[in-house]
């Protein structure tokens, strides 16, 4: 799988330039508060809109869609770190989401833990599993990593189906209590909406600080070139593992919240299609940006809802998951035309590119023809 030695030599110059440029841009971001300017107002406006929306909109359906968007945003933020910054792909992220959801389900209904502790468990369990499987898996590159994570996702999915005594098998587990914070029981969409989006904003704040930190710059360097990063003394293996654990924790947290929201979990929600959907969201939004995952999650969820409404109108009696036709096509088209994600489109329009969209460091290191077949 190693590229030819000659390739490395000729490319390393460009890679170093890339790393330094990114570091420079980040430095500018850190110092230049004034640079935000217009972008800052946009952020405030969006946050205000998020706050006001449930007060104005009187529809449980729209609220539930917005909640799902929020939950997926949390997952995709983590996946975006893994793909956009650490340059790794995960085709099994639904497994971490599912592990979080099942942690809450098992801890509350079988072991009657207090709800908040169970939610903590939902974040910790996938994190530990990611740490255990991450060390050997992240050694793999490209194709093998993709297939390894895909296999992990399938294995966990089979586990949900087969471990009847623990997970209830294919029919799932019901009777998960509502999340209770102090005296506040989050039993309506209205209350849950505020919790989810508060968590989303918190996660985005953490990621914003993280990516502007030394670790964030090191991660960016890793995604540009592992060899170059290693040669300037970055612990690439450790960083990739941290990114993996971090993204698993976020996926688990979102899964735990999901379990409290729908109060029912079953394996069907956490299969391969869900993993691909997360990757699609990350790719559509542009991994390696802050706003990208939120935009990607919102777009894909909205498109899914639209298609679920539209398709039965065109084909009477249709009731399957036909939206995957379009999701698959979109994924293929985006990867053909714009392999670094649609988010990069904004970089062609400098005036509109917000703060988060400095050159994303690419899902997929797109180096032309590394001497043919790996």
């Amino acid at each position, binding site marked *: 799988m190693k590229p030819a030695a000659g390739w490395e030599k000729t490319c390393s110059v460009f890679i170093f330039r890339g790393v330094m440029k990114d570091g420079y841009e980040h430095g500018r971001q850190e110092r230049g508060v004034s640079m935000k300017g217009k972008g800052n107002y946009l952020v405030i406006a969006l946050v205000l809109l998020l706050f006001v929306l449930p007060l104005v909109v009187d529809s449980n359906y729209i609220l539930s869609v917005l909640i799902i968007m929020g939950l997926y945003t949390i997952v995709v933020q983590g996946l975006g770190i893994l793909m956009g910054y650490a340059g790794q792909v995960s085709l099994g992220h639904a497994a971490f989401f599912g592990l979080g959801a099942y942690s809450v389900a098992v801890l509350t209904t079988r072991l009657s833990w207090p709800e908040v502790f169970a939610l903590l468990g939902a974040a910790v369990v996938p994190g530990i599993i990611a740490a255990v499987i991450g060390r050997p898996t992240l050694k*793999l590159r490209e194709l093998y990593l993709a297939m*390894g994570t895909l*296999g992990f996702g399938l294995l966990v999915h089979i586990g949900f189906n*087969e471990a009847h005594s623990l997970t209830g098998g294919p029919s799932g587990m019901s009777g998960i209590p509502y999340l209770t914070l102090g005296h506040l029981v989050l039993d309506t969409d209205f209350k849950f909406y505020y919790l989810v989006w508060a968590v989303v904003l918190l996660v985005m704040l953490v990621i914003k600080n993280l990516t502007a930190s030394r670790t964030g710059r090191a991660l960016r360097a890793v995604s540009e070139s592992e060899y170059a990063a290693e040669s300037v003394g970055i612990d690439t293996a450790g960083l990739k593992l941290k990114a993996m654990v971090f993204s698993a924790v976020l996926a688990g947290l979102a899964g735990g919240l999901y379990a409290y929201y729908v109060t029912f979990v079953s394996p069907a929600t956490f299969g391969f299609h869900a993993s691909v959907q997360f990757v699609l969201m990350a790719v559509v939004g542009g991994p390696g940006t802050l706003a990208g995952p939120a935009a990607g999650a919102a777009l894909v969820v909205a498109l899914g809802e639209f298609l679920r409404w539209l398709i039965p109108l065109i084909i009477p009696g249709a009731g*399957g998951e036909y939206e995957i*036709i379009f999701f698959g096509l979109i994924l*293929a088209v985006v*990867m053909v035309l714009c392999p670094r994600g649609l988010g990069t489109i904004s970089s062609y329009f400098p005036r509109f590119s917000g703060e988060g969209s400095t050159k994303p460091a690419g899902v997929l290191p797109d180096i032309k023809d590394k001497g043919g077949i790996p």
Partner: protein
Amino acid sequence: MSEQLLQLLFSGLTLGSIYALMALALVTTFNISGVMNLAQGEFAAIGALLAVTLSGAGIPLPASFAAAVIMVAAAGGIMERAAIHPARGASGLTLILITIGLSISLRGLALLVWGTDTYSLPPFSRGGPLFIGGAALNLQSLWVMGLVAAAVTGLHFFLNGTYTGKAVKASVINRTGARLVGINVGTVSFWAFVGSGALGAAAGIFIAPIAMAVYDMGFMLGIKGFVAAAIGGLNNAAGAVLGGLLLGVLEAYGAGLVSSGLKDAFAIIVLMSILLVRPEGILGALGERKI
């Protein structure tokens, strides 16, 4: 007991033959075009479903077989021109995400056309099963194993005995070198997809009388084809076939003796252990490229 073991061996070899065919198509395309085509399983599913529909419309089985194979082969070619060719030179991950997108789309289309029902084809030849050592061997199983033998011999003869085959071999060994002596590598990649479409469809149709055809059968077939190919080391056609047979037998014994619910888990555990312990495959050596 020994009869049961023999019976499981037969069903394992039958299933394994299908995995071997998937792996053969995957490895050939991968080495020619650098694309791990995760839509390979979809070729089998759509081929089988097309053959079911055509033969259900009254067309004789051989004719519907040929028509389905040609249609899927054409679909493979169109896929290569529309999605793989424009992205040539992109990283392996980009390409794999493209094929995942395409495979999901094809699965959705199959769901749209054929629904979630399972379909069956009549066996190719009449007559009861053969009894060997007290275990029954279906005639259809012999057909499936025959297809593997035919595909392997055909590929071997094509690569070593024909001028075109030698050009294909050259573009596997050294793409730039092949281009320099006037071989159009893009065209070779196109025909690789046409060929793997045809082979996938044939495999799907041959297994349909035994295993039923359903819109989502392609997903696990594709994954298991990859596992079989990984056992062989991704660059070794003989290894891929052997890997497929091994995987089929392992799965049959696992499902028969341990738990049938964990049938798919065995393949994935094999995959994970190979990836982690010996990514070059049990038979392969890294860096060596051949088909």
